[in-house]
């Protein structure tokens, strides 16, 4: 009945949830690299221009003036160097962090069985990481930081990225678009690559707010500046948006949706999902994925049974099922229960006169521990005592 194969640990199978662990630092690394590219390109261009100017003007201007322009170039060059060094430091941090993460995943590869102690401690760290991930995604950043620090897993979680994400989310919830637009500008190229409509939607919202306040002149100027450019790609939206100039919020006519408060929630959702896809993060907390799968595979028809067959705690020979426990019982209600093709029961089953079935050894062990008379059994769940002569053998094929 014992399925040995079920205990074999395949590290690769256990890595299904671990991609973000290495993926996110890679995206951060890419970002750092892109900034360095931008710095070198921009400052290089500017500095060669300055050099050209200085060279051209040199014959006409005083030596002091020439020195001054040279000094300006030096200052700019120093700033560039400093900026590059900062990026290099950040890069080193990400490298070190990735190394820690790789070695954490390697720990898993050195295990061969799910029953080893090593797997348990690895799995405990995984739960801690997932809880931190869950907390960060829900904006509980202090809890997340405390937990990460206490468990010593700061290198394995991404507090900064999520805190930034949450700050922008909150600003959108407070109907402010500035932070989110700044983020869009920062990630312009990546957003273009995935054909994100986030920036257009944000601009549209700014415009709608102008119209809502009946600042029509500002609305038109804004639309001309930021929306008209997208009128090819977002023709319908652009036309509809233009129409609301004629329909004030009190009488929105067919444009109720554009004035709707729900648009802000929509913006928050769009931002978060865009943010997560840019960083290659799953849209759902990892805890949800693992927990949903776990609840279902552990759940049995008995876990929510209305009959009192549930294992209770009245006796030390029964162990309490995690799905039956108060912590998860309610949560597991809507999920389907696990599928089984073979029965899983104790050896040498006997049925007590009250209809309850137990393994013979379980009952005799219990009777021994309780110091019962040798002719008796006690039902560990109901507490009733029965004569051993009254039990019957049960056959489960």
């Amino acid at each position, binding site marked *: 009945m014992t399925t040995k194969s079920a205990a074999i640990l395949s590290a690769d199978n256990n890595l299904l949830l671990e991609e973000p662990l290495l993926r996110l630092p890679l995206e951060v690394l890419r970002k750092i690299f892109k900034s360095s590219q931008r710095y070198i390109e921009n400052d290089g261009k500017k500095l060669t221009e300055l050099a050209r100017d*200085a060279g051209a003007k040199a014959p006409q201007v005083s030596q002091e003036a020439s020195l001054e322009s040279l000094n300006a170039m030096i200052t700019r060059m120093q700033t560039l160097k400093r900026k590059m060094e900062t990026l290099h430091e950040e890069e080193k941090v990400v490298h070190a962090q990735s190394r820690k993460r790789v070695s954490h995943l390697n720990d898993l590869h050195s295990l061969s069985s799910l029953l080893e102690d090593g797997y348990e401690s690895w799995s405990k760290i995984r739960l801690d990481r997932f809880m931190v991930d869950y907390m960060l995604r829900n904006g509980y950043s202090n809890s997340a930081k405390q937990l990460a620090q206490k468990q010593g897993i700061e290198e394995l979680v991404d507090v900064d990225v999520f805190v930034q994400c949450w700050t922008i989310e909150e600003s959108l919830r407070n109907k402010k678009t500035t932070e989110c637009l700044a983020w869009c500008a920062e990630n312009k190229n990546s957003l273009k690559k995935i054909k994100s409509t986030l920036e257009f939607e944000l601009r549209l919202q700014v415009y709608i707010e102008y119209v809502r306040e009946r600042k029509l002149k500002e609305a038109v100027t804004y639309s001309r500046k930021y929306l008209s450019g997208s009128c090819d790609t977002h023709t319908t939206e652009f036309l509809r948006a233009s129409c609301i100039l004629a329909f004030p919020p009190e009488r929105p006519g067919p444009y109720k949706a554009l004035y709707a408060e729900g648009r802000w929630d929509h913006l928050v959702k769009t931002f978060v999902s865009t943010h997560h896809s840019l960083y290659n993060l799953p849209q759902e907390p990892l805890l949800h994925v693992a927990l949903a799968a776990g609840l279902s595979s552990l759940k049995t028809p008995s876990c929510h049974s209305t009959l009192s067959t549930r294992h209770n705690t009245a006796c030390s020979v029964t162990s309490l099922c995690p799905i039956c426990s108060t912590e998860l019982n309610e949560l597991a209600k809507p999920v389907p229960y696990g599928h089984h093709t073979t029965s899983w029961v104790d050896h040498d089953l006997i049925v007590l006169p009250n209809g309850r079935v137990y393994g013979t050894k379980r009952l005799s062990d219990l009777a021994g521990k309780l110091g019962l008379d040798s002719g008796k059994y006690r039902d560990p769940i109901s507490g009733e005592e029965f004569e051993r002569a009254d039990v019957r053998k049960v056959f489960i094929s």
Partner: protein
Amino acid sequence: MDAIEKELDKLTNGGANLSKSIKDIDKCLEMLMDARTTIENDPTATVPTLQALESQLKTGFQLATDSLKGPHGGIAKYGKALDKKFKHSTNENTFGALANRQPLINRAIQMHLLREGNFEIAETFAKEAGIVEGVPSVLDIEFRELFSIQESLRRKELKPAIEWAEKRRDLLESRATNLEFELHRLQYMILLFQGTPDDIPNALAYAKAQFGPFQKKYLTEISQLAGCVVWREKLSMSPYAALIQDESSWQSIIESFTTEFCALLRLSAESPLYVATTAGAIALPTFNKMATIMKAKKTEWTSQNELPVEVPLPDKFKYHSIFVCPVSKEQTTDSNPPMMIPCGHVLAKDTVQKLARGTGSRYKCPYCPADSLPKEAREIYL
């Protein structure tokens, strides 16, 4: 993992990072500084020096840009190594089953934090998550006691645990646990073996004072413990070698204490959140495969109340007896419970009815020659 490590090495030590570009920029900076020194020392050199700068800077920046190819390629290769490793990843496996159940998940997390003794974090969490109906404060206090007794056991102090167990002797006894006796036994063995021979009377006095109430149930054990005195110097060679106390006895006493403590609170000893996420991670490959098939067939598994395939889990994740009717191959439920027929074989209720063709007539057991009436079958509880 090796491929990933190799690429990572190249990023850190192999120079596929920004250090080379920084050196190039530094050279440009030096060049500018040199130009300044030249001009300051020899004003007549001002014009030619400045006029040479543009092309010098251009070359310098070209070098810096070229040096970026190192990190660019390195990052790309590292990314490819990740792609290869994680090709079966579960990125968009949204079961959605837990999407709107935040309060319940929060409570489960709060309980887990308390169980692990992270009281401060639990407090911060409750505040941040705005938990109103979370874990009752009674439990909070209980968990603090649990944790402090566990800590004292880790420091090898038995007294708080013994006091706890003594107060709950009746409850523990009805659970048929020998926790209290085991705590005393450990204390006795410590007194006997950790002191000098002069301490033996102390150990015996302890035994006399404490073992009294356990005489009836644990007579054999107690006489063995008494026997240990004789073998004090060479217990490992004695018939009582199994009684030697070491680190693992402490470990197991902490475990059984935790189990009993939680059981009295009607909780499982292991954190359900931990067990469930671990089981989930083990089960995930099966779920992934299932999701792929479901997607291809355009069906959804949440619509049924049973998973379509069996998830292989180690036995320690099985908490309930499971009965699958050998005829219908269905798991029994409240509405289709297991029935024992007079010959002692067990079938699902629906199966019995089917065998009797719904008429209540006599039918033969599918597993032995006996025949019986459907009304003779009785429901059993597994």
